């Protein structure tokens, strides 16, 4: 019996699951060890989680160099009965998730101590969420995709409400849970329709059969409904208009470190899922969803930028700003969906670079806000950041770097991300869309500079110096360094993305997707 089960698994399956299994083991370990760790040594859990993430990262690097660089397996490893595809695209996201998690762990220790909520579950849930994200990035079967999504989402719901004594945190978690469950339901409904139409849960098979189906009935209503319901789920997860209303509440209420984590890692996972589902599964319906995405991206940028203008809470402001960034990234989807090569390549390239850059700059910005948290002071109002320069010049300058990068001012990395998006729009001849998008950069500048001017040009409300932990310092150092470095010397990173997309190579992800 046991032998039969073992036969169902190929050696590739074990390899594919190794990074995920390692994280799971460490997460479970933390849950158990936490019972024995005394209250003052809770940082030990963070160390365990950190080591677990590093182990997982190590395996990912191994896979990168042993398999994906070898010619025979360069197109990726398929496993688990064709449900999982670990290709370069998935690998890129693995790196993003793991690096974001490492940085988030570094910022969390001191923050949780101050909040008096230092429990092992926090780190365990974080690792579980990463497991879910990895499944989402590598799934080519909608069942695995959905399982990954739910694992990630449920872990995040709990993390958002982790500050049990804080009413805002509870409220945010409940809202997020209700809306998230609702959207997951709609998403699952769309997937089930898709299964009904095509008889398969594999995205490549869906692509094929949907194509055949549409040749017979070009405007099949069921297919359109499947697209709309699935897109609803996807747009909810990336927080795009009109399904973005949860984001400001959830971001504001969540522990700041989790807000940072959510805004980069969780969102990147949702993007990976969106790209796989739209560009593989729904590729035959491209002429339907491209106009839809144009509308969504413009509406997202408009709504988020206008709402951000009047915010006085920095976390909420950055939440709206991250919705605005979603609008920009969606433009990459539009360019990728509507353009021919090389416009198509640049659209996807833009998305990947954007997500990379965004990981560092946004995590950095939230880390600075998290470091403002002190006993009795939440530190997330703009007034709290006023005069930061005179209290903590180092943090203030770093925050300025992150804000300029978010606003897309060169030579920060954010400019490069925007550059690729604009380039892909010009290449795919969306001139008006490009003009609208650049003009929204002005709104962005205004509200980011509102924070900057508070930091540099106003007097501090209190003089107390900022206690910054070593973990926080390292995290800030890494994120700021990356933000500047990618901005000034982006060559290697562009090449890495080109490698991910298999550009200039015989067979490529692009050719698979298109």
């Amino acid at each position, binding site marked *: 019996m046991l032998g039969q089960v073992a036969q169902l698994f190929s050696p590739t399956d074990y390899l594919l699951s190794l990074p995920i299994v390692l994280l799971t083991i460490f997460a479970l370990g933390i849950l158990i060890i936490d019972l024995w760790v005394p209250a003052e040594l809770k940082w030990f859990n963070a160390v365990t989680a950190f080591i677990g993430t590093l182990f997982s990262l190590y395996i990912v690097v191994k896979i990168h160099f042993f398999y994906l660089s070898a010619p025979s397996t360069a197109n990726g490893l398929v496993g688990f009965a064709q449900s999982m595809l670990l290709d370069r695209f998935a690998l890129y996201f693995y790196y993003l998730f793991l690096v974001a998690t490492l940085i988030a762990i570094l910022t969390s220790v001191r923050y949780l101590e101050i909040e008096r909520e230092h429990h092992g579950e926090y780190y365990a849930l974080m690792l579980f969420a990463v497991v879910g994200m990895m499944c989402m990035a590598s799934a080519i079967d909608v069942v695995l995709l959905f399982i990954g999504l739910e694992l990630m989402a449920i872990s995040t719901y709990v993390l958002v409400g982790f500050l049990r004594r804080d009413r805002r945190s509870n409220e945010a978690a409940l809202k997020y849970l209700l809306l998230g469950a609702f959207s997951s339901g709609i998403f699952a409904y769309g997937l089930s329709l898709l299964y009904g139409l095509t008889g398969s849960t594999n995205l490549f098979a869906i692509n094929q059969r949907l194509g055949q189906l549409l040749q017979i009935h070009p405007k099949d209503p069921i297919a359109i409904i499947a697209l709309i319901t699935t897109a609803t789920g996807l747009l909810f997860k990336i927080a795009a208009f009109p399904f973005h209303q949860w984001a400001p509440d959830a971001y504001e209420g969540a522990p700041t470190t989790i807000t940072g984590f959510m805004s980069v890692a969780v969102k990147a996972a949702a993007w990976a899922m969106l790209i796989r589902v739209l560009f593989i599964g729904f590729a035959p319906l491209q002429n339907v969803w491209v106009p839809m995405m144009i509308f969504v991206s413009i509406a997202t940028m408009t709504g988020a930028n206008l709402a951000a203008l009047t915010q006085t809470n920095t976390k909420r402001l950055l939440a709206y700003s991250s919705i605005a960034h979603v609008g920009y990234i969606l433009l990459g989807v539009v360019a990728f969906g509507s353009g021919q090569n090389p416009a198509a390549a640049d659209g996807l390239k833009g998305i990947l670079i954007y997500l990379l850059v965004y990981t560092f700059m946004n995590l950095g910005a939230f880390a600075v806000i998290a470091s403002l948290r002190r006993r009795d002071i939440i530190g997330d109002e703009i007034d709290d950041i006023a005069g930061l320069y005179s209290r903590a010049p180092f943090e203030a300058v770093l925050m300025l770097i992150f804000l*300029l990068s978010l606003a897309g*001012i*060169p*030579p920060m990395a954010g*400019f490069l991300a925007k*550059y690729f998006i*604009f*380039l892909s729009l*010009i*290449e795919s001849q969306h*001139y008006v869309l*490009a*003009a609208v998008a*650049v*003009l929204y*950069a*002005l709104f962005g*500048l*205004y509200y980011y*500079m509102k924070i900057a*001017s508070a930091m*540099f*040009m106003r007097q501090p409300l209190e003089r107390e110096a900022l206690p910054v932990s070593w973990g926080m310092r390292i995290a800030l150092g890494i994120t700021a360094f990356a933000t500047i470095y990618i901005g000034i*010397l*982006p*060559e290697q990173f*562009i*090449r890495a993305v*080109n490698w991910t997309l298999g550009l200039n190579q015989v067979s490529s992800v692009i050719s698979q997707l298109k």
Partner: protein
Amino acid sequence: MQNHILSIILFTPLVGTFVLLLIPGENKNAIRWIANIFALLGFLISLPLVPMFWEKRFEVGFKFIEGAPSNWIPSIGAGYYLGIDGISFLLIMLTTLLGWISILSSWTAIENRVKEYYAWFLVLQTGMLGVFMALDFFLFFVFWEAMLVPMYLLIGIWGGPRKLYAAIKFFLYTLLGSVLMLLGIIFLYYHHHSVGNPYTFSIPALYQTAPGIEFKYAVWLFFAFFLGFAIKVPMFPFHTWLPDAHVEAPTAGSVILAGVLLKMGTYGFVRFSLPLFPAVVMHPKVRGWMIGLSIVGIIYGALVSLMQKDMKKLVAYSSVSHLGFCTLGIFALNPAGLSGSVLQQINHGISTGALFLIVGVLYERRHTREIAEYGGISNVMPVYATITMIMFLSSMGLPLLNGFVGEFTILQGTFLENWKWAAWAVPGVVLAAAYLLWLYQRVFFGTVTNPKNEKLHDLNPRELLCFAPLIIAAFWIGLFPKPFFEILEQPVNKLVTQIRPNYPTAATTVNASATPTAAAPSADSAKGTH
């Protein structure tokens, strides 16, 4: 072997920033000394460029080329690619000189957050120099935008009462123009590729393909670039950020803003708009609008200056008027107009820079810029009054001083195209004399009526040192402008042949030599090379 002088000039101020960061903030005098040393060093290092450039002044194309296209980010074709011609050479010299003077002038004006102030100022200096040196559009854009940040902070931290408003207004306005320009750049870049070339941001390469863009696209591109430059210049009606920024900025900030930042707009027209979109520029409607806006700017700026009660605001609006002359000369699109325009840009940097310093001197002593607060200052500060008189005369375009040469050549160039344009612009000269002399009369003549003004002390040696180079330059350009026209001759002629291949440059020479004054040297030298 490559000559690295441009990189050295470019990065000396930035090195100064890093040195400053190592000094503890409490040690204010040490910081001031180091900042001044680096600013002076930045100027001195640029001086060897003068003889080196002089030797090559008639050579065709960009000189002192450094780096190569596409060597910085090969994947997208961006390069660290520097080079200058006569136009950028003059502007670079102006930048290094004004950078030093404005840092020197801030010695007592800035008392809080001294370290930051000088650090940002030196960053700004590098950014401005980079804009004039870049031969790669990506690099150019990086400098163009990066420079906004230090200027924003200079206005926002050390500015006057409405500094926050002025700072963000300045930042947003300039960004509005530059983001659309970015799209224009990307379009050129993509077009260059789509006609069968490798991706590159190299400006000389784009010069080759951009004129081939279809007219209906080229018009849009022209206006995308136009908006970026017109806001920077600023041309009427995009000038509204300027008075706010100037009035609120600290003195040194105003000097740099007027002296150098505004020149980036005109430089952009000359360097990019004209050679990239010759068909659009030559289109009578477009050209008519450009000339019209310039003339409106000249008259409007002068009239508004006349009505100001605040000295600094007066000088700020006078900039609108003077820059109107510069754009008028550019869109005259002939050698006289263009070389006059570039020379007038230098003149404006010298005279208006000095005017802001003059206002700053009084402001430091009395902390007010209201004209009504003053009167009879020449009795208590005779040296100051003399210097002010010289700079006022230079600004209003009195013969023998620099302003005259520039304005005259511009008007001459405009006249050759259409005498009506020149006729409309001439009242600007008269009005300039009116608002400046009236200001002088109210502030300096008569008896001291306000008791607070009785004890004002005259210029100290440091302040005299600030004015000395500007006065020398004003007289030099006014008395002997020939070297400047020789430096400008080659790039300007090249520009004219790019836009109007059939333009008889020789005919201009004959016309120019018929007028005995300022433009004559240019004509002589032109003959010498033919």
